[in-house]
Structures are given as structure tokens and as C-alpha cells.
């Protein structure tokens, strides 16, 4: 589904604190598979996720999405791609404070202009599926960490994306909640949804749900399983 060719990414390029966070990445992320990036802190996992998710552009190299080169597209096209094809679950969840769970969930759908009724139906469906129905009207800051993550997952799924991207999804959860997350992941994978995540939590990387683990170090891929 997504192919990365000779990707390099520099921060502060040309300045004395120049840093190549990614240094020659070739990777094919397959559709309908769960792919996990593993590696020590600073190895470039998050940076790679931002490139795949069109949140940033590579300094060098090409990103192909369904065969089409998207690394040079202007911002507005990338936004459109993000909205239609990717769903994000951030490590800190990044929900909008002051809004209810339901309002947060339908937020990515506003720019699509889909009818409200349809949006609400879809949101309710997701809430029910993640056992959050009773918290729909609660302001997100009142939710527990696990509930917040489930709201974030619902939000990521509202536009029915092809690829779900999650950065360190279990980093802010205890073992029990992490297991719950893996169960949710299993459900999504079972539906044939493509998933890309980063983690150094063995609970994730050793799990049967994960089809493929990509090992990273110093901005390169060093191993694969």
C-alpha cells in the first residue's frame, strides 16, 4: 500500500545542530497487515510515522501511496490524504479539551461535509463498539486514560481510513489497559484494516496480532521479523 524509497529526514538542516533522524529507509507497508516499528528511543520511529502519515515531508527520497508519488505534493493535497486515508492515534491522545467525547470524535469529519445524521450514526456505532456509549456527553478531560484512548481510536476511525497510525499506543496505559488495547487492535485487524504502529512495549511487539516487526536503530532499518 505504501512504499518508502531511500527516505532521509533531516532536522535543522544546514545548521550546526543538523540531525539526520532517518538515514536511508526502504520499506513497504502492506495493506491489511499490522506493522510495528520497534527500536530504542531516538531511533526515528515517530519521525517515520509522520512521513507515512503525511504530517511532514521527507528531506530526500520518495513516498508512494497506492503507486502514486506523494512526497512532493502541496500541503492541501496532503491534508486531503490525511483526512480520507489515515486515522491517527497519538501517544498523548491529543483530544480537544472542553469538547465532549462525541464532539471530538466527529471533528475529523467536519471538512468532509457529510450530513450530521450520518456522522452521529457512525460515531454512535464506534462508541458502542468500544464500550463508550455511556460517556458520549462527558467532556474529554473528565475521562480516564483508557477512555481517552478509546475516544481517540473512535476519532481515528470516523472517516473510515485505510490505514490506522498509532505512535506508542500503550505508553500511557497500565498492563490491563494495554491488553484491552491489544484486544481492540485484534478486532480491527480482523476486519482487515491496515495498521502501522510504533512501540517498544513487548506486550505489543511480541503479540500475535502484529504481523510484522520492523527493527530500527539510528534512523535505519536493522532487522525485520
Amino acid at each position, binding site marked *: 500500500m505504501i512504499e518508502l524509497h531511500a527516505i532521509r529526514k533531516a532536522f535543522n538542516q544546514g545548521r550546526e545542530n543538523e540531525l539526520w533522524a532517518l538515514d536511508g529507509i526502504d520499506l513497504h507497508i502492506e495493506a491489511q497487515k499490522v506493522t510495528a516499528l520497534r527500536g530504542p528511543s531516538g531511533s526515528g520511529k515517530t519521525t517515520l510515522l509522520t512521513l507515512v502519515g503525511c504530517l511532514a515531508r521527507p528531506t530526500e527520497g520518495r513516498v508512494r501511496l497506492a503507486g502514486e508519488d506523494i512526497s512532493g505534493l502541496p*500541503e492541501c493535497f496532503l491534508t486531503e490524504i490525511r483526512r480520507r486515508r489515515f486515522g491517527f492515534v497519538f501517544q498523548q491522545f491529543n483530544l480537544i479539551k472542553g469538547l465532549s467525547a462525541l464532539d471530538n470524535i466527529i471533528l475529523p469529519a467536519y471538512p468532509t461535509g457529510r450530513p450530521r445524521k450520518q456522522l452521529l450514526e457512525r460515531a454512535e456505532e464506534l462508541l458502542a463498539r468500544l464500550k463508550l456509549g455511556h460517556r458520549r456527553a462527558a467532556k474529554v478531560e473528565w475521562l480516564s486514560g483508557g477512555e481517552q484512548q478509546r475516544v481517540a481510536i473512535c476519532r481515528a476511525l470516523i472517516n473510515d481510513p485505510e490505514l490506522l497510525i498509532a505512535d506508542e499506543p500503550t505508553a500511557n496505559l497500565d498492563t490491563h489497559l494495554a491488553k484491552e488495547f491489544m484486544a481492540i487492535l485484534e478486532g480491527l485487524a480482523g476486519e482487515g484494516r491496515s495498521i502501522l504502529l510504533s512501540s517498544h512495549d513487548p506486550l505489543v511487539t511480541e503479540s500475535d496480532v502484529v504481523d510484522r516487526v520492523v527493527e530500527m536503530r539510528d534512523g535505519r532499518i536493522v532487522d525485520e521479523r
Partner: protein
Amino acid sequence: MKLWLARRRYLIDFTLLALARRKTRNLGLLLVYTVLVFMLASVTLYSHALRQEAARVLANSPEVIVQRMVAGRHDLIPPGYIEKIGRIRGVQTREARLWGYYYDAVTRANYTFMVPAQGAPAAGEIVVGPALERSRGLAKSNGISFRSYSGKLHTFVVADVLPQASELVSADLVLMSEESFRAFFDYPAGHYTDIALSVANPLEVRNVALKLAAALPDARPILRDEVLRTYASIFDWREGIVLALLSAAILAFGILAWDKASGLSAEEKREIGILKAIGWETGDVIKMKFWEGLLVSLTAFLLGFVAAYVHVFHFAAALFEPVLKGWAVLYPRFQLTPQIDGLQVATLFFFTVVPYAAAVLVPIWKAAITDPDSVMRW
């Protein structure tokens, strides 16, 4: 088209949600901004209304008024004086006028008694202004007595009441016949208060004045243009003082509003990043914030302007009173007629709402055009 509408609606929905979320901040901003608009609008409304009043008062007055001076003081026009003026080119009409002030001990107010050039009431009858109608409870065909300065009581019948519309000019007016006037004030026969000249061509007014001065050395010609200019300069000066006194407050509130509006909190920056990351277009984010700012500033503008209107026209600019007392030079009891000038409103709007919108937009725009990858690192 339908899609466009739906998106627009969602955007406005979200804007309202966002506004409601930061209630204290937005209310504070609204308050500061309203006070700012209120102060500016009060000053402009007040001075504009005054200017208009002055123009209105003077619109019907003659181009030149001739007073006779004795020992540097205004004195009566003796018989034969008007003939001495003779024929001056450009003067259309010469008219000797009779008028004076009367202090009414009952209402403790000054009235202007006057003999109109045309349509004077019959002897023993008067026509009164609306202020008298109110303060003395007068109506058509009522009788009323005034004690003259000589101590004699004079009784008149009210023949008519002047219309409300001309209140400013005519509120305290009492019109009567020449006979009644002379009898009431013991005005010597053949004497007049002053002489009004009408000059059709404004360019000739100065010439007329010069010729008058030559023909009658003891006369003082008063030109309407000069009076107007005097008023204008008094108004400008007063307005300047008010603005100077308020400038510190205006500046302080202006800075506060600017600071509040332009300071993008970390939380807001974060939200912009999140919205972009989950698929909001840069334009949508900017539009939303723009609506947010516009809503606040428009509301503040309306509130401030209405408050200023009420302040100036219903409470006679009570807050500025200490500074504005001297305005009363124009008219003994000055009552402003409410009026709004479109250009003035537009100017005020431009200088308050537009800077606000700019203050809000620049930082938003900066935050909105950066890559959204930082959301991954919070």
C-alpha cells in the same frame, strides 16, 4: 454547493463551541473591547451631534447681525439708525429685530421673548415653545401671566405651541407682537435690539461688513461664518481635550485588547496542530479563528456603540461632564438630538474591528501554516 454549505455550518458550529469553551477569556476580551469602543464612540457621537446642532442653530440665522456698541457694550439701536446703513450692494433685506431674555422665577429658567419678522401673534397673544408647554403645563388658549421687570403683571393667551421637531432652537421661545413686547419690557419706542442683514452671495459678506464699519463706526457686525468658525474651533478644542484625557485609558485598553487577541496560548497552538493533523485544511482553521475573532469584536462593537449612544443621548454624556461643561457656550440648555453619521460609524468600525481581526489573524496564520508533525511529539 450543498457540501459547501454543510462545511460552513460545521465550521460555525465548532466556532461557537470553541467560544463557549474559553468563556472567561472571551468574556474578558469582550469587556475590555466594549469599553474601548464605548469611549471612542461616546466622544465621536458627542462631538458630531454638537457640530450638527451648531450648524442647525445657525442655519436660519442671518448672514450678518449688526449690534450697536456703547462704551464697549451692546446697546439698543436708536431710531433712524437703520436708515443710516443706507444701500449697501449685496444686502437683500434689512430687518430691525426685537428680542430679549426673561427670567421666570416660577420655573427658574430663562426664556427668549421675541417678535417674529412675519406672522406675529395678535396683541395679548403668545406662541410658546415646547419647553414652556411642559414646564408651565400650558396648552392652546390657556392664559398665563408673567411679571415684568418693572413689577407689573402681564397676562397673555397662548395662541399656539411650536412643533416638537424644532425643539433645540425654539424650546424656550416666546413669540409675541411688537406692542406686547414693548409694553412688557418698557422698550423705548423706535428702538430695536439689533439689525439682521441677509446677504445672498457668501463672497460679499466680508465687503458688506467693511462698508458697515465705515458707515457706522459704533456698529459691530457679527458674521455667521465667524460664529460658525468659533464654534467649530471650540468643538475641536474640546474634543481634543476629551481625547487627550482619555488617551491614556484608550491606549491601555487598546494594548490590553491587542495583547489578549494576539497572544496565542500554547493550548490554542496545540489545538490548531491537532485540527490540521486530523484533516482540517489550513484555510478552515484560519476561517474558524477569524469567525471567532469577528464574533467577539462585532459583539463588542455593537455593545460599545449602543452603550455610547445611550450615554450621550439619554444621559447627556454624564461621564464626560466635568470636561464638557464648557460646551454650553452654544446654547443655555443644550439638549442633543440623537443622530448617527454613517461615515463616522464606518470609521470607528474600521479603527476598532479591523485591527482586532488583524491581531487575531497574524499569529493564527503563522501557527496554521507550519507542518503539523509536532502533534506527534506532545
